[in-house]
């Protein structure tokens, strides 16, 4: 039995320290996932706590036939989606149709900045562009390109077919690429003027 399974067993027996250790194995990953999903440290902290509280309460229903990390990520994804939905309901009158807006690609003739360190301001622009993707796209970008999960793992986490993973990754990157190109080149021009 590996450490993870041992910790799960002990947590189920009511061992609080074991559960703390179990949390420590995943908290940074889950927090970073939530942070990229929300682009806000406070929301990310709240959501991460919510995720682990759900994990704690539902640990006994975790079935051993899937990976524990997959299970936690799926809870994280659903928690973030739920949060997004609630927020959208609140923001709807001001922010109508934000999803459609994202589908407009404004390609720029300039290539992405090559061989240079990303500056603080550029880093913020990148975060903003990620934040503007729709949650399904954001999720695959985070899991694939920031956290390095395989296509198969992403399919398991999000519980979607492989074909959907492929096309979502493809479209998410294309959208992000075009958004970044127009934002970053605009940024460059302003700096020149």
């Amino acid at each position: 039995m590996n450490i993870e399974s041992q910790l799960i067993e002990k947590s189920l027996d009511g061992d609080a320290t074991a559960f703390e250790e179990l949390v420590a194995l995943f908290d940074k990953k889950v927090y970073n996932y939530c942070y990229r999903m929300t682009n806000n440290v406070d929301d990310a902290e709240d959501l991460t706590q919510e995720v682990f509280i759900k994990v704690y309460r539902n640990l006994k229903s975790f079935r051993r036939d899937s990976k524990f990390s997959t299970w936690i990520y799926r809870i994280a994804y659903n928690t973030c989606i739920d949060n997004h939905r609630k927020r959208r309901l609140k923001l709807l009158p001001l922010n109508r149709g934000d999803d459609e807006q994202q589908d407009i690609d404004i390609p720029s003739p300039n290539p992405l900045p090559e061989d240079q360190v990303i500056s603080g301001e550029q880093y913020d622009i990148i975060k903003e562009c990620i934040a503007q993707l729709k949650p399904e796209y954001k999720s695959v970008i985070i899991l694939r390109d920031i956290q390095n999960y395989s296509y198969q793992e992403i399919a398991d986490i999000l519980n979607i077919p492989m074909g959907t993973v492929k096309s979502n990754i493809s479209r998410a990157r294309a959208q992000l690429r075009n958004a970044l190109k127009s934002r970053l080149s605009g940024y460059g021009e302003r700096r020149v003027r």
Partner: protein
Amino acid sequence: MDCRHFDEYISPYLDQVLDEKEKDLFERHLNNCPECKKNLEDTRRLISILGDLGEEPLPQGFQENMFRKLEKLEDVQKPNGHYWLRWIGAIAGVIVMLFSIKAIKNPLSMGEMSKNSSPVQEMADEVDIASDMALHDESYIAMDDNVEAERGDYDEDAQDDSQSAAPKRAISEAENQYSNGIGSIQTDIVEVYVEDICITPQTLKDIAINNQFELIEADDNSVVIEMRDQTEREILYQELSKLGEIREVGQSTEENLVRIVIKNQAKPE
């Protein structure tokens, strides 16, 4: 094929998940298309930028805060309230079952005990069911402590309602419970009448996650879940009966996919 089509090849190409034929086709196109080649390079650059974003550190005191929160939640449930709620659940269950069994077995004379089965056997059945309900109560508390206070009342109300407003339904459900030992979802469309507005498709999604059901799709008021075996159908029945009154409205019993529709309204009187 045009460039829009090939744009979809860029990502899988970079991640090396294209098959040989597609790869060949795409590489041949790249040789003749500077536009796609540029997009390929930009996507490659994007992936490298994203890879460099790295991890953000956890906020100060993250773990302490969370465990404090968890402990607080635990305190609410333990130690006495926990057992009390279990017992209240069990007792309420016995009372409700006693009434419904009498009503079903002998609808004309509510006060009389059934003559067909021995009272001892009947009591034994009831205890089984009651302890089952107590267990449900416990897992329900674990799911959401916000509603636990209302839990007892709500449950009894719901059961009482089902007797007065829909006696036929109550009988068929009870028969169902006796024939299989436990209820199960059988058709492809199920309505759940809930009074608690906090119950949303997200609640159903959580149920799906917790029980590792295959969640197929979800919209504003329903979800579709794949049922892989009888056990899952029974678990789903138990879970849904905790939310409200179940009404099977599907025509087919052959489908593996079950749509669960949430009805945010009190059941018609």
